[in-house]
């Protein structure tokens, strides 16, 4: 046997930390709620969608949610573009055919009142617009849910990229020190003095329309200006770990530099990084929303919270728009912050003491 941990078995310290996290009720409940919301956003197509869940037509089963596009002619309607599933119940009225729509039968990009004037419409449970529609007749709940998913994808990629760059560079700076450390530090100082917002504005105006300002370009710009914070933390953490005796012991044994970094220093520094993740998520959602709000974020018609918030503030006489977007942002950020606090408390067990 090689004394390697089987995958399912966690280090007992980590297990203890997780147990402590579960005991912090506020954080744990927030974690459960947020996990639920994330799950809902992942299966958003089944809940909020203008495609039907199931269509029973002439003895055949259709599941259009994730499948190929069906034209109107497929279901006996006289057109060749994608079928509007909301037309089907009327067409199937006298037959054995039937159709099952999701609870909210609207897509995020769909104009729900085709042919009518563009204006925000208040919540209407009968029409299944639970949060109303925005100024171009799109369902707000659909936009919120798909916008949340975009924000999550953005945050996940943001964390992966900033941490990858920050941890790698910071660790190298801390481990090798001397001129390399000095050089990178100066570069970072200059880099972080470039005004981020201007760069976003310039890039937004320079990006050729054929490519468009996509989620990925936006991500790259934000990451380019956000990785520096992590290098500072990793640099000092690596400096600290490098000076500890277990690293000296490995050096005396003749361990190679990669071995010391990957087997000794990284596992000991990364454990604290977990506590930063929730706050980074909050930051990422915040910046994406802010950029969208200012109009430098995701290109229309991508569903996004910032864009909804902007609509809401310019249509204050339709308060359901701003209320929905604002509530969604506040709830998610509060949940993330609660989780972050709980994680920090669970992973950093400084018992509070007071003296008389």
């Amino acid at each position, binding site marked *: 046997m090689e004394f390697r941990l089987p995958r399912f078995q966690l280090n007992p310290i980590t297990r203890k930390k997780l147990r402590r996290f579960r005991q912090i009720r506020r954080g744990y409940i927030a974690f459960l709620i947020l996990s639920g919301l994330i799950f809902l956003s992942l299966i958003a197509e089944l809940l909020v969608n203008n495609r039907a869940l199931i269509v029973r037509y002439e003895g055949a089963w259709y599941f259009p949610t994730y499948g190929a596009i069906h034209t109107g002619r497929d279901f006996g309607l006289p057109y060749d573009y994608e079928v509007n599933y909301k037309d089907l119940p009327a067409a199937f009225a006298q037959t054995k055919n039937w159709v099952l729509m999701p609870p909210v039968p609207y897509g995020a990009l769909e104009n729900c009142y085709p042919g009518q004037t563009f204006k925000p419409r208040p919540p209407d449970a009968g029409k299944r617009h639970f949060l109303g529609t925005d100024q171009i007749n799109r369902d707000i709940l659909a936009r919120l849910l798909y916008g949340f998913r975009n924000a999550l994808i953005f945050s996940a990629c943001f964390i992966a990229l900033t941490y990858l760059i920050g941890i790698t560079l910071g660790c190298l700076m801390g481990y090798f020190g001397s001129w390399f450390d000095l050089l990178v530090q100066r570069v970072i100082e200059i880099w972080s003095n470039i005004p981020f917002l201007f760069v976003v504005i310039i890039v937004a105006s320079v990006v050729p329309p054929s490519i468009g300002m996509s989620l990925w370009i936006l991500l790259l710009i934000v990451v380019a200006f956000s990785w520096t914070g992590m290098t500072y933390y990793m640099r000092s953490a690596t400096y600290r770990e490098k000076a500890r005796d277990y690293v000296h012991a490995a050096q005396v044994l003749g361990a190679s530099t990669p071995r010391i970094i990957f087997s000794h220093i990284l596992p000991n520094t990364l454990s604290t990084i977990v506590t930063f993740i929730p706050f980074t998520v909050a930051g990422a959602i915040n910046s994406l929303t802010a950029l969208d709000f200012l109009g430098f974020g995701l290109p229309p018609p991508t569903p996004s919270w910032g864009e909804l918030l902007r609509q809401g503030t310019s249509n204050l006489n339709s308060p359901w728009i701003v209320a929905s977007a604002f509530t969604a942002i506040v709830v998610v950020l509060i949940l993330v912050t609660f989780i972050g606090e709980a994680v920090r408390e669970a992973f950093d067990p400084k*018992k509070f*003491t*007071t*003296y*008389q």
Partner: protein
Amino acid sequence: MVLEVRDLVTTFDTDAGTLTAVDGVSFPVRRGRTLGIVGESGCGKSVTALSIMRLLPQPMGKIRSGSILFDGKDLATLPTEEMRKIRGGRIGMIFQEPMTALNPVHSIGRQLSEVFLLHRTRNEREALQMSVEMLRKVGIPSPEIRIGEYPHQLSGGMRQRVVIAMALACKPDVVIADEPTTALDVTIQAQILELMQSLQDEMGMGIMLITHDLGVIADMCDDVVVMYAGRIAESGPVQTLFSTPSHPYTRGLLNSIPRLTTPRKSRLPIIEGMVPSLAELPAGCRFQNRCPYRIDACSVQPALEEVGPGHRSACHRWRELPSLPVSP
């Protein structure tokens, strides 16, 4: 007798349940004499000191029962406000790590005169004057200049002198010194021990000296209390205790330390095993699982019996102990 601890029980609430760190400890501290409390980590010696000073970490630490008699009052139940006056005024404390006992952002003079302003005078200039005098007394050269300096500008030995000056500022009746020389080098330790002795001769306070170093105990103390796993194993006058240890733990400790006179590279007699954790103490005598002389009776807690004048031991077999072989 200035201070008397009677049947002190101190507990800590932890994740693993309530742990009894000090379990029924009694001893007196006498004027002009030095009482040593010796034991290994986790034996409860520091918790005893913190209990007396009422500085237990809150909210986990509690004095469960027993009394700490000082000047006709019971410190265990004294209101916080009154305790504050006694602490630093009539009972001084010297800590192990002088750097943590001093506030790094305030000058030496300011910290020392604060003690005088709290307990002795309202006049700031007078307090500063007293501080200079006190620093001179603890052997700090050119104290008029030193009062303007900050803790990090002083060496470890000098810092400990400042801590001693603060502890002795108000001419306390008792000084509690918790490992005062552990963080210091041997030659500096000699300076500090010498200073504490000469200040005691001059001011006549009782000293309670907590240490793990039997050498320091032998050098400094009149009486000794040996603690093991929260209880007193043995107590008595220093000469008697070192010449005729009447508890297997004391005897084992004294035999196991290498001395300048032990034959070189010889096997040292050892105490097997290690101190049990407070969460899993054996019933009865707490030393039994390490004791080479264990008998069935040891599963019953032995009482602290008088074995000689002022000399007590908590061992069922103290009478036969001198005839038992050192390493069976």
